[in-house]
């Protein structure tokens, strides 16, 4: 079936799942342009007219966390397990909802405030499926996929972020 490679970076991974719906998971160390990724995926894998709903989430690095100013961040991951588990959560989602396509891209390496960290995009005929799958994939990503953030604070000290939260406060 389809298989794509991201040639720009040795850290890049791009795995096209051999399943009933088009999906792509990428872990990249270069800057992430969410809308470019979405546009490219859509034109490459989806057919005009078949989908009516696209729900998208973009996570962006903030310049504050837990009351402190944050000046930088380094994102580490577990190469291999990351891609395997991302494919697993997409597999779960496509059995729970009727989807035309799923795209997940996550950045690793050093980041600055304002940099996009992650995008999740879901295409469906109907809006409920797209919305719910997108939300559920983000929650699954934040609780189960092996990424870790180390923050640099304004006094140049750094610290590992210890846990993700319920989405209301971090």
């Amino acid at each position, binding site marked *: 079936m389809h298989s794509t490679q991201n040639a720009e970076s040795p850290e890049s991974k791009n795995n096209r799942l051999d399943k009933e719906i088009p999906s792509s998971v990428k872990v990249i160390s270069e800057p992430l342009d969410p809308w470019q990724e979405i546009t490219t995926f859509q034109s490459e894998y989806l057919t005009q007219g078949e989908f009516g709903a696209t729900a998208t989430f973009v*996570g962006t690095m903030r310049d504050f966390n837990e009351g402190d100013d944050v000046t930088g961040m380094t*994102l*580490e*991951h*577990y190469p*291999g*397990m990351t891609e*395997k*588990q991302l494919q697993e959560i997409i597999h779960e989602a496509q059995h729970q909802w009727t989807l035309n396509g799923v795209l997940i891209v*996550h950045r690793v390496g050093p980041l600055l405030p304002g940099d996009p*960290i*992650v995008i999740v995009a879901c295409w469906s005929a109907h809006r409920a499926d797209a919305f719910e799958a997108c939300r559920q994939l*983000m929650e699954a*990503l*934040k*609780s*189960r*996929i*092996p*990424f*870790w*953030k*180390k923050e640099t604070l304004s006094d140049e000290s750094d610290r*590992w*972020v*210890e*846990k*993700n939260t319920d989405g209301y406060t971090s």
Partner: protein
Amino acid sequence: MGIKVKCFASMREYLDLSEREIAIDGITTVADVWRCVAGDKPMPENTLCAVNQTQADTEFNVSAGDEVAFFPPVTGG
């Protein structure tokens, strides 16, 4: 063929260990792998373990050729 052990994030710093191959002798479970690479250091609360890139608990049995990883709670997204 032994067991490949990997540590990530704060666990890598705690054990000062990124990746190491250990012999299978005397090793049955994930907990045995921990003792082999960590010595006397206790396993921090909330430590996550994976065998062959799937989460597993410390009583999970490992075999020669397996990849075993230790890491803290994930914080991506």
